[in-house]
Each structure stands twice: as structure tokens, then as C-alpha cells.
């Protein structure tokens, strides 16, 4: 982030960055849940 960026824009960028981290966390969580369900199914179906 450029150092001369105005305060409000800097805050907005920081907010956006925080949201992007949250979005990635949501998708990773979903992949983990589906993977866990797959192994759960395989374990009890064998």
C-alpha cells in the first residue's frame, strides 16, 4: 500500500483485505467439511 494514501482509502483497503481473508477462510472451511464428510462416509460404509 502506498505510504501517501489518504487515511480513509487506507482504511477501506485494510477492510477489504480483512474481508478477503474471511472469504478464503469460508471456502477452506467448506472444503474441509466436505472432505471430512467424505471420509466419514467411507469409514462407516466399508
Amino acid at each position, binding site marked *: 500500500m502506498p505510504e501517501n494514501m489518504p487515511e480513509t482509502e487506507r482504511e477501506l483497503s485494510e477492510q477489504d483485505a480483512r474481508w478477503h481473508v474471511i472469504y478464503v477462510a469460508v*471456502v477452506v*472451511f*467448506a472444503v474441509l*467439511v*466436505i472432505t471430512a464428510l467424505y471420509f*466419514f462416509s467411507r469409514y462407516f460404509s466399508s
Partner: protein
Amino acid sequence: MRLLDWAVVVAYLVYVIWDGVRMTKHSGSAEGYFLANRSLPWWAVGLSVMATQLSAITLVGTTGQGYNDGMRFIQFYYGLPLAMVILCITAVPFFYRAKVFTAYEYLEKRFDLKTRTLTSFFFLISRGLGVGVIIAAPSVILSIVLGWSETATVFAMGLSTTIYTMIGGVQAVTWTDVKQMIIIFFGLFVCLFIILSKFPPEVSLGDALHLAGATGRLTTVDTTFDLKQTYTLWSGLVGGLFLMLAYFGCDQSQVQRFLTAKSVGEGRTSLLMSAFVKIPMQFLILLVGVLVFVFYQFQPPPMIFNRVEQTKVAEGARAADYGALNAEYEKAFAARQAAAVEYVKNEGSGGDPAARAAARDAYLAANKGFNEARGRGIALVKEASGNKTFTDVNYVFPTFVVQNMPAGVIGLIIAAIFAAAMSSISAELNSLATATTIDFYRRHYKPEADGRHYVRVGRIATGVWGIFACFVALYATSLGSLIEVVNRFGSFFYGSLLGVFVLAVAVPRARSRGAFWGLLFGITSVWIASRFTDIAFLWFNVIGCLVVVVVGYLLSLTVRDPQAR
């Protein structure tokens, strides 16, 4: 139901109706009545989003599907988390900052009035039918539990919810949703705990899951790519993604939830709550159905769960056939029970693999014989009643609850089913009234009236939609698995509605005529796909959306549009 159960249900109803009605003081203006003055916290909106989607059908139909088919239905929700992320990036800030009452208002700014009116009209049709089906589910339960006629039950349920929604507006809807979600979760956990406590002492949770797994009921990921198969990983990830994008991003009943949030951030967080909770919650509900299946390995289930139809056949002209089939069914159950006990014993011992495999094969053969016997019973009901689409999937869970739960808990589960139904019905009616008032009455008939006038119109519209939904509910009770019926209704329109919003937001070259005709082409293509192919309904969302975008784009290239912006 005993006195204690009645007390629980009545206490719940009185509290919810009182809670909804007392919100009247906050709903004097149009902004207050339809959008709660955009003042609600994320957790309340998030619970309301979940409560709106989680109807009584989710409890009754999904547990029935868990019992009959197992967990494959969970794949339907695999596209939801990604859909929520996409909507948080696009729809939430977009609609919130546009300061609109309905999602369709924006389409007039981007395209023209007729596109807004057409999309809002399709929303009214699909949701008007959908809310009818949502009323039908708890009415089916009440008709069994209380012995009321379905007609009386539909009107009792639908009209009581309509009244409190008319009076309280969106604030009443949201705050009652919060309490209703708490009751639903509490009821589910109590139910799960009691089912587990009713297993024979030698059957652990692990044994129960192995039994269910052996019959394929724990399949949660099916990687088969088959467009005709309803629930697969691909239909869930792709078809489910499109459906969820359309449902949460273009359906007023959900858009109106996050429009009531305090800020864009709170609106986003409310949707992400579903992204985290929805799949585990559906797993819990399906698990209840699967464990009911395991419970009935050791306790005799009725051959026909719909006791009204069962009594008709057992006492009608085909009574002798029914008696013979029932005797066969009881024999098949005894054989399966013995095989299940043997299977559990061998699984638990961890001994000889050959003996375990033999016990498993014997159990699967006995289970097949049992299913065939039950299938013959259902075929007899179809013949005797003349209803070729008869299914008793929706009767499994309520029958189990009434026959096996202790006093007080039956009341709690019935209250939870009521809560699920009322939370969805109220939100749907409120959104139908909002679209009718804002997109039709205010836009086409009386644009300059004051806020109080629109609140009055909104209340009248809520009442009219409530009555319409009751009549649809009467028809819906005779259809198959209720949850699929609702999703089918949705899938006829959702994909095409999504296509119009994609054109609006992501295709700068799109013009009004392209959007309008694209929408009509999209819905026609979905109708053709459903009429002339065996493609599973989740894919209709993809077909509808793609046809609208492609046709809309091509028409926009070729048709001169003087109103283009």
C-alpha cells in the same frame, strides 16, 4: 399428544404471536415495516436468513429422505458457501448502497420498467407457490397428530401466521425468527439424544452408523457425473451454486433479510453465518433421519407410515391383500432384525473378517427383502387409492415422534416444526407483500402516497398472499416429497432470474430488450428441459441462467435499443 405436549405447543404459539404483534409500534413507516429502518444486528439477520430457508419441510422432508435414501441430499448444499462469498462481494454492497426495497427495483434503473415488472412477477409466482408448499408440510403433520382434516389444518396454520405477519412487518418476522431458530436447534438435539437412548444396549453409535453405512445411507459424496441423477457432488457444486446464488441474491425473501442489516459489513456477516453453519446443520437433520432408520432395525416400523391411507386400505376392499402383505412384511422385519443383531455382534467383536463379511451380506440380503416387502405394501396403497404418486416419506419422522417420544418432548418437536414453518411462511409472506406493494402498487398505481398508506397496502397484500398460499397448500399435500417440490418450483424460475442479474451487473453491453427476451427464453428452455428430458432439477438453474445470459447478450448485440445506458 398428552396435556403436557399441548401445553408446550400452546405456550409456544401464544408467545410467538404475542412477540410478533408487539412489534407493531416499530412499523409505522414503509422503511420500518418493510426494512426495519435498516437497523438490525448481523446475528439476528443471520439467524433470520437461516430460519427463512429452514422450513418445516427441512425437518419433515429431510429426515424422511435420511430414512429412505440416506445422506446424499446433503450434496445439495455444497455450493452454498461459495455462493455466499460471491454474494458478499457482489450483491450485498450493491443492493445495500442502492437503497432499494426490492432486488427488482435495480433492474428498472439498469434496463427498463418491463424487465423489473417481469422479474418481480416471476418472483411472485414462484414464491407464492413455494409458500403454499411450506404451509402444506406442517399441516400434514398436524393432520396425523391431531386427526384434523388437511383442509382445516392448512387454513388454521396459514391464516394464524398471516395475521401476525400482517401486523408486525419485517421486524416481527426477524425477531420471531431468532427465537424460532433457538427452539428448532433445541428440539433437534433433544430428539437426537432420545433416539440414541432408545437403541438396544449392545448397539453403540458406531454400530448404528456401520449399519446405516452398509445400506449406503451415509453416502455424502457421490462423484458420478450423471445429469439425470438428482444429488451428486457435481449437481450440488454447480447446480447448487447457481440455485443458492439465485435464491440468496435474487429472491426477495432473502434479499430483504440482509437489507435490514445495520451496515454492509453486518449484512455480509449475516450471510457468512449460513456459509459456516448450513452444511453441518443439514448433516445433523439428515443424521436424525438415518438414526430413525437404525432405530427401526430393532423396533418394528409400520409398513405404511401414512396411517390414514394405511387404515383405508386395511379396512377397505383390499383388506385381505393388505393382511397377507403385512404378514409378509412382519416376517421380513423379523429376518432383518435378526440379521442386524448378528451384523452388530460381528462388527463389535472385530473378529474374523470372513465372518464379518458373511454377516454383512446376510444383513444386506435381509434388508433387500424387507425393502421389497415394504415396496409391495406401497404399491398396494397406490393401486387401492388410485394415487400413482403416493409416497409416505413425509410421514416417517412425525410418526416416529408421536409413537416413540416421551410426553413433553412430542410437544417440543411439534413446536419446533411449527417454528420452522412459521419462520419461513412469515418471511415469504412479508417479501411477497413488499414486492407487490413496491414493484406493482407504488410503481404502477400510486407513486406519491405517504409511508403509512404503503404500510396499509403491505398489510392487505400480506393477507391476500396468505389466503392464496393456503389454497396452493391444499394441492401440495397430495404431491410427493415436499422438499423436492419446493426446490422444483424454485428451479423453474431461479436460474433465469439469476441470468437477468448477471446480465445487469457483469455484462455492460447488455440492453433492456436482451434482458427481457433472454428471461423469457430462459424460462421456456427450463420448461422444455423439464418436459422433454430426464435432466435432474438442480441443473435447471444452470440451464436457465446460461440461456438468459447468452440470448440476452446476443440480442443486445443485434437489437438497437434507444433506451440503452
